């Protein structure tokens, strides 16, 4: 079942297309890694798809009314903003707002969803801590837990693992795979190509606002593309543990 369909989505900044006629379909059970160099249009594509930016073309998400969209797709922005010194539990419970949580105490169903999200992100011991006083990486996990508490069929996460320690980076990618196994779809933008190769079921490679490759990691991450798009050479090996990618040096060929 397709959770998100984009048809020739274009986002302009002034006259210049930042996202140029992108068509994509995201299905349940997928962990789609959105990769590409800085400024390739990854964030703009996700925001355009959600309808947070004016765009042309068709996005199945931006056509939904805001309340229905919030129950269908959770969005974790790149900017990690926590404006007020609320406790972790309260912050994560904001993910239940689309399901009707408000000023009064949480319903049993909402409280259970918050518990599941805290457990998934290994934040059980943090529930009463003030979110603004946590470290940057801990705040990132709390904000992802908020998106998980939304329990939407589709999760769009913009660089969720940037700034996390290796253990929590891997744990987070495993959470995405668990979600996919439970029937959700996940789109995650990331810069760590090694983790993208190992933990995504499909990669979408963007450059200059366009999708230049879309497929299984082993197909997308060819040495030619790494050179052409990122301007790097990399060690690539198909091991018993799956695809291993380690960037080595800048290639002579600059994008």
């Amino acid at each position, binding site marked *: 079942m397709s959770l998100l369909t984009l048809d020739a989505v274009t986002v302009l900044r002034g006259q210049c297309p930042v996202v140029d006629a992108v068509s994509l379909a995201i299905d349940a059970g997928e962990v789609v890694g959105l990769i590409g160099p800085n400024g390739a249009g990854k964030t703009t594509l996700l*925001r355009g798809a*959600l309808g*947070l930016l004016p765009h042309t073309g068709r996005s199945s998400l931006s056509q939904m009314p*805001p*309340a229905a*969209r*919030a*129950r269908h*797709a*959770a*969005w*974790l*922005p790149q*900017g990690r*903003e*926590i*404006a*007020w*010194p*609320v*406790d972790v539990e*309260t*912050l994560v419970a*904001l*993910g239940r*707002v*689309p399901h009707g949580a*408000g*000023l*009064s105490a949480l319903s049993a169903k909402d409280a259970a969803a918050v518990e599941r999200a805290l457990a998934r992100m290994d934040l059980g011991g943090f529930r009463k801590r003030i979110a603004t006083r946590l470290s940057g990486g801990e705040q990132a996990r709390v*904000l992802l837990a*908020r998106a998980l508490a*939304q329990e939407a069929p589709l999760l769009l996460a913009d660089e969720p693992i940037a700034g996390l320690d290796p253990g929590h980076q891997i744990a987070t990618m495993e959470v995405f795979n668990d979600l996919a196994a439970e029937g959700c779809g996940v789109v995650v933008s990331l810069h760590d190509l090694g983790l993208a190769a190992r933990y995504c079921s499909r990669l979408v490679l963007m450059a200059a606002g366009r999708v230049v490759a879309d497929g299984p990691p082993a197909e997308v991450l060819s040495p030619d593309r790494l050179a052409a798009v990122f301007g790097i050479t990399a060690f690539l090996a198909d091991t018993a543990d799956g695809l291993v990618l380690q960037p080595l040096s800048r290639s002579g060929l600059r994008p």
Partner: protein
Amino acid sequence: MIPFPRLLAGLAALVVALFLVSLLIGPAGISPGRGLAALFHDDGGPMTLVMREIRLPRALLGVMVGASLGLSGAAMQGYLRNPLAEPGLIGVSGSAALGAVLAIQTGVAASFALALPLAALAGAGIAVGLLLALAGPRGDSLTLILAGIAISALAGALTSLVLNLSPNPFAASDIVFWMLGSLADRSFLHVALALPFMAGGAALLLPLARGLDTLTLGEDAAAALGTRLGRLRLMLVAGTAAMVGAATAVAGTIGFVGLVVPHLLRGAVGARPGRLLAASALGGAAMVLAADIAVRIVLPGRDLKLGVLTAIVGAPLFLHLVYRTRRDLE
């Protein structure tokens, strides 16, 4: 942390207590028991007149003005995600004051009882129109602040111009005293004029609680959680303008309540901007009632102005809060 319903109940009890004290204080020297009796049973004499026509409207206006300033201050801080925001930021109180000043200067204020507050409301209305035209339908919070500051500055400058060119020293002194802010000598006409605007404003601001909560995560995440930001902003501006415009129209400019009350109560609601709305409305009412009681006790017979007292008490309180916040950050 106190449970939220208990906090609201406690604040409401405080407001009721202060309301009663406000009713029982005044230069007429009526004993509490006889005063309350005269309030409920018309004795045909001056006591009922004093209680019903002087003290009751004054106490009611204290609740209404305080609740307006507290609620709109909390809403403004929640929307801008800035604890330094206050309801006057969007230029409404300055413009309402300008309207009132023009009414005093031109003598329109003396022509009929509600001329002055109506002129102030007109000033507030013009300011909102200008603000929304300047900030545009899709503008962000920064555009709103900048447009508000510009309007405030213009209204302040025009008020100074009126004072500067005033040929009549009595009008000038009237203007200065009116601007200091007071609840003395108000009538039920003032209550009746302000109530619809304040009730309407509250009906626009209180439902913003959920949206303001989601804004804790930033505008992008809030929008993705289903909050319609354009609509929220319009309701915020309209609600604040109605409440603060009406408050300024009947009481003059009363500073620091909208800034300090949300600050004082933020810890008690676990910093949740949505819960802060109702709590600040009650807290604001309590603070203005208390200040209005104090002006009658501290200097009886000298007509100490309410706005002067809130600023004298509010500014050091605010400094203390700034100091405490700094200590928390270090």
